[in-house]
C-alpha cells in the first residue's frame, strides 16, 4: 500500500522551517560562488601590502649597453646616431632630452635611456607580471564600470558569508561555545592596532 496515496491515511505533518539548514545551504553555495574571487583578492592583497618594496603589477627588465661616446648635438641628430650605433629597430615613436647629453628614445612599450658623453645606454622594458598583474587589475578596480557592480556584489556576499558562518553551528563549537572566543580574538587584533594609533 502506498501511504502517500490520496485517501490512504492522515495527511503528513508540514515540515518545520529549519533556519539553520537554510543558512548552511546559503553559506555553502555562496562559498562556492566566491571561492575563486576570494583567492584572487587575497593574493593581490598580499602583493599590494608590500607596494613599498616592489611594483606588484609590473617589473622592469633593464639591459645596459656601452658604445663609443658621441658629441652632444641636437635631439634629432643624437637620435639618429643612437639608432644606428645601438642597431635599434628604426626611428623611435618620440624622444626627449633631460639634459644636453642625456636622451631617452621611446618605442611602443619600451625605451632606451642614453648618456652620449659617457657612452652608456639602458634598455628598459616594463613587463606585466603574469596572473598577478591580472589579479591586481581586478582587485584595484581598474576596469571600473560594470566591474564595480561585480566587486560590490562580491563584497556583500563576503559579508554575508562571514555573518552566516557565525550561526551555522550550535553548541560547544558554535558561537555560544568557543566561537565567541575566536570571534573576540579576531576583533581584538584590529581594535588593538586602532587603539595604538590613537595613543
Amino acid at each position, binding site marked *: 500500500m502506498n501511504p502517500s496515496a490520496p485517501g490512504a491515511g492522515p495527511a503528513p505533518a508540514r515540515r518545520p522551517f529549519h533556519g539553520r539548514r537554510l543558512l548552511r545551504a546559503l553559506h555553502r553555495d555562496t562559498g562556492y560562488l566566491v571561492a575563486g574571487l576570494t583567492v584572487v583578492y587575497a593574493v593581490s592583497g598580499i602583493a599590494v601590502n608590500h*607596494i*613599498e618594496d*616592489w*611594483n606588484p*603589477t*609590473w617589473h*622592469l627588465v633593464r639591459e645596459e649597453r656601452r658604445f663609443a661616446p658621441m658629441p652632444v648635438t641636437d*635631439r634629432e641628430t643624437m637620435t639618429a646616431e643612437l639608432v644606428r650605433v645601438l642597431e635599434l629597430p628604426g626611428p*623611435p*615613436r*618620440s624622444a*626627449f*632630452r*633631460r*639634459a*644636453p647629453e642625456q636622451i*631617452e628614445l*621611446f*618605442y*611602443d*612599450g619600451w*625605451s632606451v635611456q642614453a648618456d652620449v658623453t659617457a657612452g652608456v645606454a639602458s634598455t628598459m622594458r*616594463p613587463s606585466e607580471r603574469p596572473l598577478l598583474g591580472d589579479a591586481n587589475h581586478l582587485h*584595484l578596480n*581598474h576596469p571600473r564600470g560594470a566591474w564595480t557592480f561585480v566587486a560590490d556584489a562580491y563584497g556583500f556576499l563576503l559579508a554575508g558569508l562571514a555573518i552566516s558562518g557565525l550561526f551555522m553551528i550550535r553548541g560547544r563549537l558554535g558561537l555560544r561555545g568557543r566561537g565567541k572566543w575566536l570571534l573576540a580574538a579576531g576583533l581584538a587584533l584590529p581594535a588593538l592596532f586602532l587603539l595604538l594609533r590613537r595613543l
Partner: protein
Amino acid sequence: MKRLALATAALATLLSAPVARPTDGTKYGAGVTGAQLVKVSELRAHPDRYVGKTVRVEGLVTDVCPRRGCWMEVAGDKEFQTMRVKVDDGVIVFPLTAKGKVATVEGVFEKFVIPVEQVEAWKRHEAEEKGVAFDPKSVKGPENFYQIAGTGAVIR
C-alpha cells in the same frame, strides 16, 4: 517576426553607434574637463601665477613612478623641462607603459618649499645615484618645488 526585426534594428543601432577610438586615449581619474591649458614652459617661467589654480598641461610622458604609478613627468614645449603630476596613491595608477605616450593632465598647481636639510639630502642622494662626488656648494638654501596635484588624465 516583428520582435526579431526590432531586435535586429536595435543591434544594428548599437553596432553603428560611435565607439571610443584608440586615438581618444585612456582616461584616468576624472579625465580632463577643460581647465585652462598652460604650457609647461609658462608654468616653469611664472610658477607663482598659477599656484592654487586648476591647470591643464599636455606633453610627452617621460617618466612614471616605477612602484605605485602615483606620479608621472610630463615634458613641456621646450627641451629639458618637465612637470611632475602627483596623484593620490591607489586612486589613480599610471601604467609604466605610459612612457613615451602623450598625456593631457588636469589638476591643481602646487608649491612646496623644501627645507635646506632636505635639499642637501636629495642632492647627496642624486650624486650617489649618478656616481659623482657631492658638492656642498650646490646647496644654496631652501628650494621651491612645484607640481600638479592631478585629478585626471587622458593618455594616448
